[in-house]
C-alpha cells in the first residue's frame, strides 16, 4: 500500500483547496521479484532428494513448495501472490495422468491400431485437461486475499480447441498413411505435405485463439481480463521470427558446408568419417544457438504482443522484455547449467522469472481496492494439472 501511495503523483503543495480535482492519473505499479538463486537451489535440492526417496510421491508437495516460492516472492503494490494448490489433489492428478501415460505407451507397443486409438483418445481429452488445468492454476492463486479464476466451461474449451484437434488428427492421420506404405512401394508424401502446410498456415491463428481464450476468461475476483483481438499481430510475430531465423539457418548451412570442405569434402568418405565428431558438435551447437536466438526473438515479441493487448477492467499491462534480454539470460543459463551438470538450474529458473516479472508493469486506471471477490467455485480436482505436467503441455500465461 505504501508503494501505491508513493507512486501516486504528489499534489502540489500550494494548490488552492477549491482547485478543480484533476482526473485520476493511472498508477504505474511495477512488479518486484525477491527470489534468490541460492535459496531456490536449497529448496530444489531438498525436494529433489525427498522426491527420490519417496519414489516420486513427494513430487506433488515439491511442486506446491516451488510454486509457492515463486509466487510468494512476486510482489505487486506491496502485496505478494500466494499459491494454494493442494498437494494431495496434485498427487491424485499425477497418478491418474501417469496411468493415462502408461496406458498410452503400452498401447503403442501392443499394436499400431491400439496406439492410434490411445493417441486419438488423448487428443480428444486434451481440451478437457487444458480447461481443468487452467482452472486449477488460477483458482489456486491469490493476491490481496482474492483468488484468480478461469470463468469458462468444458464446452467452451472444446469449441475453442476444436480446430486444433482437427488439425492434429489430420496431421497424425497423414503420418499414419505414410506408415502403412507396403515395403517397396513409394510412399506418398502429398497428404503429409498438405497437412503440414495447413498446420503452418493455421498455427498463428490457433495460437491467437488459444491465448485470447486463456487471457479472456481469466478473472481476478470479479474483474474480467480481456485480450484484444490480435490474430493479425500473431501472424506478424511468426512472420518476423521466420525472417529473423532465415539468415541464421543459412549461416548454419554455410558453416556446415565449410566444415565438410575443410575435412576433405564428400568425395572422401574416410575423411568425413574421421571428422564426424567435430561436424556433429559444430552442427549441434550451431543449431542450438540459432534456435535460442530465434526463440528469444519470438518469446520477447510474443510477450510484448500479448501483454500490451491484455487488460483487466481499468488495469493495463505492459512488458519491456527484449529479444536481447532473453538472449543474455538464456545464454548465461545454458552455459552455466551445462558446466555444472545441471546444478545451476535453480539459479537459471530464478533468473528467467526475475527477468520476465521485473519487466512487467501494471497500470491501474482505478484503485485496486474496488475489486470484489468473484463467485467462481473452487477447483479441487488436479487431474488436468497432472496431465499438463506429465505430457509437458504447460502453456503458461
Amino acid at each position, binding site marked *: *500500500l505504501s508503494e501505491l501511495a508513493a507512486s501516486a503523483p504528489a499534489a502540489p503543495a500550494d494548490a488552492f483547496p477549491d482547485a478543480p480535482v484533476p482526473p485520476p492519473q493511472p498508477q504505474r505499479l511495477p512488479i518486484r521479484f*525477491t*527470489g*534468490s538463486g*541460492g*535459496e531456490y*537451489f*536449497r*529448496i530444489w*535440492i*531438498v*525436494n*529433489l*532428494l*525427498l522426491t*527420490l*526417496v519417496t519414489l*516420486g510421491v513427494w513430487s506433488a508437495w515439491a511442486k506446491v*513448495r516451488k510454486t*509457492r*516460492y515463486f509466487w*510468494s*516472492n512476486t*510482489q505487486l503494490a*506491496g*502485496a*505478494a501472490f*500466494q499459491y494454494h494448490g493442494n498437494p494431495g489433489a496434485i498427487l491424485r492428478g499425477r497418478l491418474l495422468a501417469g496411468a493415462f*501415460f502408461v496406458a498410452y*505407451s503400452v498401447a503403442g*507397443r501392443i499394436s499400431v491400431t491400439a496406439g492410434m486409438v490411445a493417441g486419438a483418445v488423448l487428443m480428444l481429452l486434451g481440451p478437457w485437461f487444458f480447461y481443468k488445468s487452467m482452472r486449477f492454476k488460477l483458482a489456486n492463486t491469490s*493476491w*490481496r*486475499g*482474492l483468488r484468480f479464476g478461469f470463468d469458462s466451461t468444458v464446452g467452451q474449451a472444446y469449441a475453442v480447441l476444436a480446430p486444433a484437434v482437427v488439425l492434429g488428427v489430420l496431421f497424425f492421420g497423414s503420418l499414419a498413411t505414410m506408415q502403412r506404405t507396403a515395403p517397396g512401394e513409394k510412399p506418398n508424401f502429398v497428404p503429409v505435405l498438405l497437412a503440414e502446410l495447413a498446420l503452418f498456415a493455421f498455427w498463428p491463428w490457433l495460437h491467437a485463439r488459444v491465448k485470447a481464450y486463456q487471457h479472456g476468461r481469466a478473472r*481476478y*475476483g470479479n474483474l474480467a481480463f480481456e485480450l484484444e483481438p490480435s490474430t493479425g499481430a500473431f501472424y506478424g510475430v511468426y512472420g518476423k521470427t521466420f525472417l529473423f531465423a532465415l539468415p541464421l539457418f543459412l549461416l548454419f548451412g554455410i558453416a556446415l558446408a565449410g566444415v565438410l570442405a575443410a575435412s576433405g569434402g564428400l568425395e572422401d568418405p574416410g575423411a568425413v*568419417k574421421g571428422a564426424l565428431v567435430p561436424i556433429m558438435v559444430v552442427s549441434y551447437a550451431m543449431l542450438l544457438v540459432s534456435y535460442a536466438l530465434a526463440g528469444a526473438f519470438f518469446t520477447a515479441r510474443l510477450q510484448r504482443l500479448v501483454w500490451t493487448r491484455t487488460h483487466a477492467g481499468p488495469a493495463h499491462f505492459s512488458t519491456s522484455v527484449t529479444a536481447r534480454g532473453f538472449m543474455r539470460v538464456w545464454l548465461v543459463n545454458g552455459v552455466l547449467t551445462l558446466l555444472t551438470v545441471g*546444478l545451476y538450474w535453480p539459479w537459471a529458473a530464478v533468473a528467467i522469472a526475475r527477468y520476465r516479472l521485473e519487466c512487467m508493469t501494471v497500470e491501474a486506471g482505478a484503485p*485496486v*481496492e*474496488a*475489486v*470484489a*471477490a468473484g463467485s467462481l467455485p473452487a477447483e479441487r480436482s488436479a487431474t488436468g494439472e497432472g496431465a499438463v*505436467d*506429465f*505430457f*509437458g503441455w504447460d502453456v503458461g500465461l
Partner: protein
Amino acid sequence: VSEPVLEGLLFDGRSAAATPVRIAIAGGVLTVTTPDGVLLLEHDLARLTVTEAFATAPRQIGLPGGAAVEVADGPALTTALAAAGRRPGLVDRLEARWRAALAAVVACVAVIVAAYVYGLPAAARWVAGKLPASAEQRLGDGVLEALDGNLLQPTTLSEEEQRAAQARVDDAARLGAPAVRYRLLFRSAGFGPSTNAFALPGGTVVLLDGLVRGTASDDRLVAVVGHELGHVARRHSMQAFLKSAGVGAAASLLWGDFSGQAAAIPAALAMFDYSREAEREADEDGVRFLRAAGRSALPMVDALCLLQSVELEAHLGELPKLLSTHPKLAERIEHVRDVGGVAPCYRCPDPPPACSTCGPDGEDEPATGGPEGTPRPGGD
C-alpha cells in the same frame, strides 16, 4: 521483554482492499490491532495456518472465514512464531540451511547411483521374469525390424553354408541346451567387420556372415552360440532393455519432460550393452554348453580370441557401439580359461605372435579331463 509487534496488511477475502494492521503474538494468541492500537481480532495461534517460511518472502497467516494477514517481513514473523513455540516444519528448516542443501546434493547422487547400480538391475530382473514370453518375442521382433531397416543387410552366405552352420549348432544345442528355444538368423553387417553374433529378446540369435565364414570348420561357432543362448536363457537383453528404458523414464521425470520416451531406438540399442557380470555368466554358460555337447572349453577361449583380434584390427571406437559389444576381452579370456580348465599359459593363437605352448617341449594340454583336448585350430 515486550513481545515483537509486526506490521501487516489485513485482507478480508471479500474485496482487494487492505487494512494496515499491527500483529502481536503472546501466550499462544495472535492479536490484530489497528496502527492506533484498536483491537480488531484475536485468535488462538494453534488453529491458524501460516505459509512456508522463506528467507525474504512475505508470509501469510490464514484466519478463519477466509481473511488473511500478510506480513511483509516474513523472517520477522518466523522469529516471532518460533519465540511463541511454533517452529517452522522440518522441510522448511532443511531448505533454510546450506549445510542441509549440500548434504542433499551428496545424498541425491548416492541415491541415484545406488538406484542405478543395485535397484535398477534388480527391478529389471524381476520385471523380465514376470513378463510373458510373448512380450519378449514381440520386443525382439520389433528390434529385429528396426535393425534390418538400418544396420543389418541380408546375408551373403550360400544356402549350403547356412544349412551347415545350422546343423552344427542344432547338433550341439540338442545336448548343450535342450530346454532353450532359439532361432538362428543370418545377416551381414552393413559396415565394418562382421565377426559377431547377438541374441535378441525372445531367443532369436543373429549370426553375422564374418563369424560364420571365419569359423566354418571348428567349434568356435558352437561356443559363440552357447554364449548367446546363455544370454537368451537368462533374459539378459530384456533386462538391459528394461534398464535403459528405466533410465530414460527416470531422466525424463527428473527433467519433467516425457518427450525423451519417444526416442525408443537408443533404448533398443542399449539392450546389447551387457554388464560385465552378464557377459561373464554367458561365457560360463558357453563353457557348460560345450561340455554338455561333449567338447572342451577351448573353442570358447578361441572364439573370444577371434573377437579380440577383430576388435584390435578395427581400432576400437570406429565400430558403432552396437556391434562392438564385448568389453574387456582379455579379462574374459582369462576367466573362461580358468573355469574351463584350459592351461593357464594358453595364449590366443592369432594375430599377436603366438605363444601357444606351455613349456619348452611345445606340449599344449588342457588341465582337466576335457574330452581328448580338441586340437587347437590353426590360424585362419
